[in-house]
Protein backbone atom coordinates (compact mmCIF):
# COMPACT_ATOMS: atom_id res chain seq x y z
CA UNK A 1 0.00 0.00 0.00
CA UNK A 2 2.79 2.39 1.00
CA UNK A 3 4.72 1.90 -2.26
CA UNK A 4 1.58 2.16 -4.39
CA UNK A 5 0.95 5.57 -2.79
CA UNK A 6 4.59 6.61 -3.35
CA UNK A 7 4.41 5.70 -7.05
CA UNK A 8 1.01 7.42 -7.41
CA UNK A 9 2.31 10.53 -5.70
CA UNK A 10 5.52 10.75 -7.81
CA UNK A 11 3.70 10.11 -11.10
CA UNK A 12 0.84 12.50 -10.35
CA UNK A 13 3.15 15.31 -9.18
CA UNK A 14 5.41 14.92 -12.23
CA UNK A 15 2.46 14.95 -14.67
CA UNK A 16 0.90 17.87 -12.76
CA UNK A 17 4.04 20.02 -12.79
CA UNK A 18 4.96 19.32 -16.43
CA UNK A 19 1.44 20.08 -17.68
CA UNK A 20 1.15 23.15 -15.43
CA UNK A 21 4.40 24.42 -16.94
CA UNK A 22 3.20 23.67 -20.51
CA UNK A 23 -0.20 25.25 -19.92
CA UNK A 24 1.11 28.40 -18.27
CA UNK A 25 3.82 28.85 -20.91
CA UNK A 26 1.05 28.55 -23.51
CA UNK A 27 -0.98 31.20 -21.65
CA UNK A 28 2.01 33.54 -21.55
CA UNK A 29 3.66 35.66 -18.89
CA UNK A 30 1.29 37.09 -16.27
CA UNK A 31 1.99 40.82 -16.02
CA UNK A 32 -1.17 42.29 -14.47
CA UNK A 33 -1.90 41.29 -10.88
CA UNK A 34 -5.00 43.47 -10.29
CA UNK A 35 -8.07 41.45 -9.13
CA UNK A 36 -10.00 41.99 -12.38
CA UNK A 37 -7.08 40.85 -14.52
CA UNK A 38 -6.52 37.80 -12.28
CA UNK A 39 -10.21 36.88 -12.69
CA UNK A 40 -9.91 37.12 -16.48
CA UNK A 41 -6.69 35.04 -16.38
CA UNK A 42 -8.38 32.32 -14.27
CA UNK A 43 -11.33 32.24 -16.69
CA UNK A 44 -8.90 31.82 -19.60
CA UNK A 45 -6.81 29.03 -18.01
CA UNK A 46 -9.95 27.16 -16.85
CA UNK A 47 -10.50 26.39 -20.55
CA UNK A 48 -6.87 25.37 -21.16
CA UNK A 49 -6.78 21.54 -21.39
CA UNK A 50 -3.16 21.37 -20.20
CA UNK A 51 -4.04 23.28 -17.03
CA UNK A 52 -7.10 21.00 -16.53
CA UNK A 53 -4.92 17.85 -16.83
CA UNK A 54 -2.44 19.42 -14.40
CA UNK A 55 -5.15 20.30 -11.85
CA UNK A 56 -6.58 16.75 -11.92
CA UNK A 57 -3.07 15.28 -11.48
CA UNK A 58 -2.36 17.69 -8.59
CA UNK A 59 -5.59 16.58 -6.87
CA UNK A 60 -4.49 12.91 -7.13
CA UNK A 61 -1.04 13.90 -5.82
CA UNK A 62 -2.57 15.88 -2.90
CA UNK A 63 -4.85 13.07 -1.71
CA UNK A 64 -2.24 10.33 -2.14
CA UNK A 65 0.27 12.41 -0.14
CA UNK A 66 -2.32 13.01 2.63
CA UNK A 67 -3.00 9.27 2.77
CA UNK A 68 0.75 8.51 2.71
CA UNK A 69 1.53 10.73 5.73
CA UNK A 70 -1.29 9.02 7.61
CA UNK A 71 0.30 5.54 7.20
CA UNK A 72 4.04 6.33 6.89
CA UNK A 73 6.31 8.62 8.95
CA UNK A 74 7.24 12.06 7.59
CA UNK A 75 10.90 10.92 7.51
CA UNK A 76 9.80 8.56 4.73
CA UNK A 77 7.25 10.80 2.99
CA UNK A 78 9.42 13.94 2.70
CA UNK A 79 12.37 12.43 0.77
CA UNK A 80 9.82 10.62 -1.39
CA UNK A 81 8.32 14.02 -2.34
CA UNK A 82 11.80 15.15 -3.47
CA UNK A 83 12.13 12.06 -5.68
CA UNK A 84 9.99 13.92 -8.26
CA UNK A 85 12.95 16.26 -8.88
CA UNK A 86 14.73 13.63 -10.98
CA UNK A 87 11.98 12.73 -13.51
CA UNK A 88 10.86 16.37 -13.63
CA UNK A 89 14.34 17.66 -14.46
CA UNK A 90 14.74 15.03 -17.20
CA UNK A 91 11.35 15.98 -18.67
CA UNK A 92 12.17 19.70 -18.39
CA UNK A 93 15.35 19.11 -20.38
CA UNK A 94 14.11 16.65 -23.03
CA UNK A 95 10.36 17.32 -23.27
CA UNK A 96 9.98 21.02 -22.35
CA UNK A 97 13.38 21.75 -23.98
CA UNK A 98 14.59 23.95 -21.13
CA UNK A 99 18.17 25.05 -20.82
CA UNK A 100 19.30 22.81 -17.93
CA UNK A 101 22.97 23.77 -17.50
CA UNK A 102 25.54 22.30 -15.06
CA UNK A 103 24.50 24.73 -12.30
CA UNK A 104 20.91 23.46 -12.42
CA UNK A 105 21.96 19.76 -12.51
CA UNK A 106 24.41 20.26 -9.61
CA UNK A 107 21.94 22.38 -7.63
CA UNK A 108 19.18 19.80 -8.03
CA UNK A 109 21.60 16.99 -7.05
CA UNK A 110 22.60 18.88 -3.87
CA UNK A 111 18.93 19.49 -3.00
CA UNK A 112 17.95 15.81 -3.42
CA UNK A 113 20.84 14.67 -1.16
CA UNK A 114 20.00 17.50 1.28
CA UNK A 115 16.35 16.44 1.54
CA UNK A 116 17.43 12.87 2.38
CA UNK A 117 19.64 14.27 5.18
CA UNK A 118 16.95 16.64 6.49
CA UNK A 119 14.48 13.78 6.89
CA UNK A 120 16.83 11.84 9.22
Amino acid at each position, binding site marked *: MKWILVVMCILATTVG*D*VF*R*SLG*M*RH*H*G*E*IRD*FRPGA*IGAMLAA*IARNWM*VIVSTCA*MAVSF*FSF*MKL*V*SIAPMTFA*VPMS*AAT*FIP*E*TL*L*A*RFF*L*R*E*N*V*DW*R*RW*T*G*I*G*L*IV*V*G*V*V*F*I*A*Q
Partner: protein
Amino acid sequence: MQATDPRLTRAASSQALHAKTRFWAVISVLSNVAGNSALTHGMQQLSHVGNTPLALIAALFHPWVALGVALLIVWTFAHMALLSWADLSYVMPVTAIGYVVTAFAGKFFLGEIVSPARWAGIVLITAGVTLVGRTAPASPLDGNPQ
Protein backbone atom coordinates in the same frame (compact mmCIF):
# COMPACT_ATOMS: atom_id res chain seq x y z
CA MET B 1 19.10 60.29 -22.40
CA GLN B 2 16.86 59.63 -25.39
CA ALA B 3 19.03 57.02 -27.09
CA THR B 4 18.64 53.97 -24.87
CA ASP B 5 21.34 51.36 -25.22
CA PRO B 6 19.48 48.08 -26.04
CA ARG B 7 21.95 46.22 -23.83
CA LEU B 8 20.93 48.41 -20.87
CA THR B 9 17.23 47.81 -21.58
CA ARG B 10 17.84 44.07 -21.71
CA ALA B 11 19.82 44.17 -18.45
CA ALA B 12 17.07 46.20 -16.75
CA SER B 13 14.30 43.86 -17.94
CA SER B 14 16.32 40.82 -16.82
CA GLN B 15 16.73 42.46 -13.39
CA ALA B 16 13.01 43.18 -13.23
CA LEU B 17 12.27 39.55 -14.13
CA HIS B 18 14.62 38.34 -11.37
CA ALA B 19 12.91 40.63 -8.83
CA LYS B 20 9.40 39.54 -9.91
CA THR B 21 10.47 35.87 -9.82
CA ARG B 22 11.99 36.27 -6.35
CA PHE B 23 8.82 37.98 -5.02
CA TRP B 24 6.48 35.23 -6.24
CA ALA B 25 8.91 32.48 -5.17
CA VAL B 26 8.78 33.86 -1.59
CA ILE B 27 4.93 33.97 -1.69
CA SER B 28 4.90 30.42 -3.09
CA VAL B 29 7.26 29.01 -0.42
CA LEU B 30 5.57 30.76 2.54
CA SER B 31 2.02 29.85 1.48
CA ASN B 32 3.08 26.23 0.83
CA VAL B 33 4.86 25.77 4.19
CA ALA B 34 2.11 27.54 6.17
CA GLY B 35 -0.65 25.76 4.24
CA ASN B 36 0.82 22.29 4.77
CA SER B 37 1.45 22.99 8.48
CA ALA B 38 -2.13 24.22 9.04
CA LEU B 39 -3.51 21.24 7.12
CA THR B 40 -1.41 18.70 9.06
CA HIS B 41 -2.33 20.38 12.38
CA GLY B 42 -6.02 20.25 11.48
CA MET B 43 -5.93 16.64 10.27
CA GLN B 44 -4.15 15.57 13.47
CA GLN B 45 -6.89 17.17 15.59
CA LEU B 46 -9.45 15.26 13.51
CA SER B 47 -7.84 11.89 14.17
CA HIS B 48 -11.16 10.13 13.65
CA VAL B 49 -11.56 11.19 9.99
CA GLY B 50 -12.82 8.25 7.97
CA ASN B 51 -11.73 7.19 4.51
CA THR B 52 -14.93 8.00 2.67
CA PRO B 53 -15.01 11.05 0.34
CA LEU B 54 -17.87 12.49 2.43
CA ALA B 55 -15.74 12.33 5.60
CA LEU B 56 -12.87 14.12 3.82
CA ILE B 57 -15.24 16.84 2.57
CA ALA B 58 -16.64 17.26 6.10
CA ALA B 59 -13.05 17.64 7.36
CA LEU B 60 -12.64 20.68 5.07
CA PHE B 61 -14.93 22.65 7.43
CA HIS B 62 -12.52 22.28 10.35
CA PRO B 63 -10.99 25.80 10.83
CA TRP B 64 -7.34 24.67 10.57
CA VAL B 65 -8.01 22.49 7.55
CA ALA B 66 -9.93 25.34 5.88
CA LEU B 67 -7.04 27.74 6.59
CA GLY B 68 -4.59 25.21 5.13
CA VAL B 69 -6.67 24.78 1.98
CA ALA B 70 -7.01 28.59 1.57
CA LEU B 71 -3.22 28.98 1.83
CA LEU B 72 -2.69 26.14 -0.66
CA ILE B 73 -4.99 27.98 -3.10
CA VAL B 74 -2.66 31.00 -2.76
CA TRP B 75 0.29 28.62 -3.38
CA THR B 76 -1.38 27.22 -6.53
CA PHE B 77 -1.84 30.73 -7.91
CA ALA B 78 1.74 31.82 -7.11
CA HIS B 79 3.15 28.58 -8.60
CA MET B 80 1.10 29.04 -11.80
CA ALA B 81 2.16 32.68 -12.09
CA LEU B 82 5.85 31.69 -11.74
CA LEU B 83 5.52 28.96 -14.37
CA SER B 84 3.93 31.45 -16.80
CA TRP B 85 7.38 33.01 -17.30
CA ALA B 86 10.00 30.84 -15.55
CA ASP B 87 11.35 27.35 -16.32
CA LEU B 88 10.11 24.31 -14.39
CA SER B 89 13.78 23.33 -13.87
CA TYR B 90 14.22 26.74 -12.17
CA VAL B 91 10.99 27.03 -10.13
CA MET B 92 11.14 23.47 -8.75
CA PRO B 93 14.65 23.67 -7.21
CA VAL B 94 14.38 27.32 -6.09
CA THR B 95 11.16 26.68 -4.14
CA ALA B 96 12.91 23.70 -2.46
CA ILE B 97 14.11 26.27 0.11
CA GLY B 98 10.71 25.44 1.65
CA TYR B 99 12.30 22.27 3.15
CA VAL B 100 14.74 24.56 5.03
CA VAL B 101 11.93 26.92 6.13
CA THR B 102 10.00 23.87 7.45
CA ALA B 103 13.06 22.70 9.44
CA PHE B 104 13.51 26.17 11.01
CA ALA B 105 9.78 26.50 11.69
CA GLY B 106 9.97 23.16 13.54
CA LYS B 107 12.92 24.42 15.59
CA PHE B 108 11.49 27.83 16.51
CA PHE B 109 7.76 27.15 16.80
CA LEU B 110 7.67 23.53 17.92
CA GLY B 111 11.00 23.42 19.78
CA GLU B 112 12.26 20.49 17.71
CA ILE B 113 15.95 19.64 17.93
CA VAL B 114 17.91 20.07 14.68
CA SER B 115 20.37 17.16 14.51
CA PRO B 116 23.80 17.42 12.80
CA ALA B 117 22.40 15.42 9.83
CA ARG B 118 19.57 17.94 9.48
CA TRP B 119 22.02 20.85 9.60
CA ALA B 120 24.01 19.14 6.82
CA GLY B 121 20.80 18.80 4.82
CA ILE B 122 19.98 22.49 5.38
CA VAL B 123 23.46 23.50 4.13
CA LEU B 124 23.23 21.24 1.04
CA ILE B 125 19.73 22.44 0.08
CA THR B 126 20.70 26.11 0.58
CA ALA B 127 23.79 25.61 -1.61
CA GLY B 128 21.71 23.91 -4.31
CA VAL B 129 19.04 26.63 -4.27
CA THR B 130 21.71 29.36 -4.43
CA LEU B 131 23.38 27.67 -7.40
CA VAL B 132 20.12 27.31 -9.38
CA GLY B 133 19.08 30.85 -8.34
CA ARG B 134 22.12 32.18 -10.19
CA THR B 135 20.82 30.89 -13.56
CA ALA B 136 18.42 32.95 -15.71
CA PRO B 137 14.82 32.07 -14.70
CA ALA B 138 13.67 31.54 -18.30
CA SER B 139 15.34 29.66 -21.16
CA PRO B 140 15.52 31.66 -24.38
CA LEU B 141 12.58 30.67 -26.58
CA ASP B 142 13.29 28.88 -29.86
CA GLY B 143 14.11 31.35 -32.60
CA ASN B 144 14.26 34.23 -30.13
CA PRO B 145 17.81 35.61 -30.29
CA GLN B 146 19.11 36.63 -26.85
